[in-house]
C-alpha cells in the first residue's frame, strides 16, 4: 500500500518534483514564502502560503524561484502570462479564487486569448493554483467556487481534483502542460489524507474517473462534492441502490464520453456542484447529457447545488448552503420514485 499523505502535501510534492525537473518552473504569489527581506529569515519562509501548502519550497529553491509578490493580482498574474509566453513555466498562486475579480482581464483577455489572437504563434504554459469552496466560515468573498466562470472561457483548462492522489498527478500534468491550466484546490480538503504514489506521475487532464461503480444511477460530482456523493452512495447501497459516482476531475476539457457511458448504463443522472446554481458546471453537464444522452435518460436530470445567494458567514446558514448526502439521496429518491429511500 502506498503511503498516505494529505491533499496539501500532495500538491506541495507536485510542485517540488516539477521544480526539480525544470528550472523554468517558478512559483509566484502572495506569501508563497513570506518574510521576503526579513533579516532573520533569508531563505526561510515565514508562511509558505496562507494555508502552508508551499511550505519548504523556498528553502529548497530559493527566493528567485519562490517569489513573494505585492498584493497586485493583475500585476503578477499578468506577469506570469507573459513570462510563460517568453520561455518560463510559472505557477502563479491566486490565494482565493474569489480574487479573480482583481485579475480577470489577465486571465480571460490576455492569457486565454493570446495564442488564438496570435494565430497559434504563442503558447502559455502557465498554471494558476487557486483555493475555492465553502464550509470554512470564510464568508462571501472567500468561499466561492468559480470554476464555471473559467470553464466558460475558451483557451483555459480547468482542473478540480477531489483526492490527494488526483491532485498530485493532475498538478504535475498541469505544470507540464503547454496551455493555461486553472487548478482548483478546495480549502476544506487540504487536511484530507489519501494514498499517494511517490515520485513523478501524471494523470491526464480531460479524463474523468469513476470513483465508485454502480448500475442504478449516475452521480457526477465536482471536487469536494465527490465525497458528498460517495457518502450518499454508501447510504443508498444500504437501500439496495447502486450509485455510480463519476468525478470529471477536469471541467475543461470535459470527458463527455465517460459521463455519457455511465448514464447509458444507469439511465438516471444527478449532478452535485457546490457552486451557485446558474450557468455553472452542473448546468453545463446536464445540458450536454440532455443533448447527447437524451435517449439514455429515464428521468429528469437533477442538480444539487448551492442556492442563488452569496455564501453566508454564519455556520448555521453555511451548512445549509452546501450540498449534503441527504440532499443527494432525496434527489435520487425522486428519480427512482421511491420515497422510502429518504425516510431513514
Amino acid at each position, binding site marked *: 500500500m502506498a503511503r498516505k499523505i494529505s491533499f496539501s502535501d500532495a500538491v506541495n510534492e507536485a510542485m517540488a518534483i516539477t521544480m526539480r525537473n525544470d528550472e523554468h518552473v517558478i512559483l509566484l504569489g502572495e506569501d508563497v514564502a*513570506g518574510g521576503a527581506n526579513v533579516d*532573520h529569515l533569508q531563505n526561510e519562509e515565514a508562511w509558505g502560503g496562507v494555508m502552508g501548502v508551499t511550505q519548504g519550497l523556498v528553502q529548497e529553491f530559493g527566493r528567485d524561484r519562490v517569489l513573494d509578490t505585492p498584493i497586485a493580482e493583475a500585476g503578477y498574474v499578468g506577469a506570469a502570462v507573459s513570462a510563460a509566453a517568453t520561455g518560463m513555466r510559472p505557477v502563479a498562486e491566486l490565494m482565493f479564487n474569489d480574487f479573480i475579480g482583481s485579475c480577470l482581464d489577465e486571465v480571460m483577455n490576455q492569457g486565454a486569448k493570446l495564442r488564438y489572437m496570435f494565430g497559434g504563434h504563442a503558447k502559455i504554459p502557465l498554471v494558476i493554483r487557486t483555493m475555492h469552496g465553502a464550509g470554512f466560515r470564510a464568508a462571501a468573498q472567500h468561499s466561492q467556487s468559480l470554476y464555471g466562470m473559467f470553464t466558460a472561457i475558451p483557451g483555459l483548462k480547468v482542473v478540480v481534483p477531489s483526492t490527494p492522489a488526483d491532485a498530485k498527478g493532475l498538478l504535475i500534468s498541469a505544470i507540464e502542460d503547454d496551455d493555461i491550466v486553472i487548478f482548483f484546490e478546495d480549502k476544506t480538503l487540504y487536511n484530507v489524507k489519501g494514498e499517494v504514489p511517490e515520485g513523478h506521475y501524471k494523470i491526464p487532464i480531460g479524463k474523468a474517473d469513476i470513483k465508485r461503480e454502480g448500475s442504478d444511477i449516475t452521480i457526477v460530482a465536482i471536487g469536494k462534492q465527490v465525497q458528498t456523493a460517495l457518502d450518499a452512495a454508501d447510504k443508498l447501497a444500504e437501500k439496495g441502490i447502486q450509485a455510480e459516482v463519476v468525478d470529471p476531475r477536469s471541467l475543461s476539457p470535459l470527458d463527455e464520453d465517460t459521463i455519457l457511458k455511465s448514464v447509458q448504463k444507469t439511465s438516471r443522472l444527478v449532478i452535485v456542484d457546490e457552486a451557485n446554481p446558474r450557468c455553472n458546471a452542473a448546468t453545463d453537464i446536464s445540458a450536454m447529457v440532455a443533448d447527447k444522452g437524451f435517449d439514455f435518460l429515464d428521468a429528469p436530470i437533477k442538480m444539487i447545488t448551492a442556492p442563488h445567494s452569496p455564501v453566508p458567514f454564519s455556520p448555521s446558514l453555511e451548512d445549509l448552503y452546501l450540498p449534503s448526502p441527504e440532499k443527494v439521496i432525496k434527489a435520487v429518491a425522486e428519480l427512482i420514485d421511491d420515497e422510502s429511500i429518504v425516510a431513514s
Partner: protein
Amino acid sequence: MGVSEIQQQSLTSEKAKWMYQKMAEIRRFEDQVHETFSTGVLPGFVHLYAGEEAVAVGVCAHLDDKDSITSTHRGHGHCIAKGCDLKGMMAEIYGKSTGLCKGKGGSMHIADVSKGMLGANGIVGGGFPLATGAGLSAKLRKTGGVAVCFFGDGANNHGTFHEGINMAAIWKLPVIFVAENNGYAEATPFEYASSCESISDRAASYGIPGETVDGKDTMAVYEAAERAVERARNGEGPTLIECKTYRNYGHFEGDAQKYKTNEERDEHLKELDAIIRFRQHVLTTDLASEDELHSIDESVRKEIEDAVEFAEKSPMPEADQLTTDVYVDYQPGGEE
C-alpha cells in the same frame, strides 16, 4: 508629543474622553475576541485591530453620521470608532442572527450603513473605489459629508489605490485616504512590496497633499485628519495621510508571526502603545482626570462583557434566512 495650538483649540475635554473611550473599547474588544478565538468558539478568519486604535479614533473623531468610511479585513476598530453597536458587532462575529448583518457577513463584512460605516471588506484594495464613490455621492447630494478610506500598506500596491485616488483628485472629491502602515501585509514587509519610501510620497502622483504621521500618536493622527477633513469639506479635494503603526497580534488569529522581531514587538506593545500615550496626554493637558478615565475603563469592561453575553445568548440565524437579502424585491428559490 507637543501640544500644538490647533489641537488645543479643537480638542475639547468631551471629545478627548470620547476618543479615550473608543480606543479602550477597541482594545478590549479585540483582546476579548483574541481570547475567545483561542477557545475555538469563533468561526472563520479574524483580523484584529489592537495596536492601531489611534488611527481609527484619531480620524473618526472628526466625523459624524453623514460622513462615510470604507474599511478593510481588519475592520473592528473602524466600526467601533464610527459608532457601530458593540453587541451587534460581537454577535456578528459569532455568526448570530442578532449581529449587525444578521450573521451573514461575519468579522470581515461588518457594516452599518446608517452610521456611514460602509463595511469591512475582505478584498484588499476594495475600499478605494467605494470611498471615492461615497465622496462623489456626498458632493452630488450636497450633504457636506466626507468619505474616509482606511487601507493597509499592502493595499497601497493594488491597482484600485491608483484608480480611486486619481478619480477623487481630478474631481476634487471630499475623500481622505488613510494608510495604516503597520509594516506588514500578511507576512510581507512594507519595504519589500512597495517601491516607495513612504506611502505619502505617492500623493505627488495625484497632485494632492500627502503626509506621514506617527500613527500611534493619537494627537498627531487627530491633527492631520483635522486638516484633511477641513480641506475636504471646503471642496479642496482629497488628502493622503500615512499613519505608521503596528498590529499587536498576528495577521489573523493563528499567525505565528515569524517575520516579526521580539524587539519591535516589545517596543510597540510597551512604550509606543497608543493608548498609554494618549492617556498620558489627556492627563497632562487636563482634558480628563484619572478618575474619569478610570470610570471609562470600567464601563468599557462592562460593555464588552455585555456584548459577549449578548452574542453568546443570541440564536443562530434560521434556515429561512439563507436566501433572503440577496435582492430587494425577490427571493431566489433554494435548491431543495
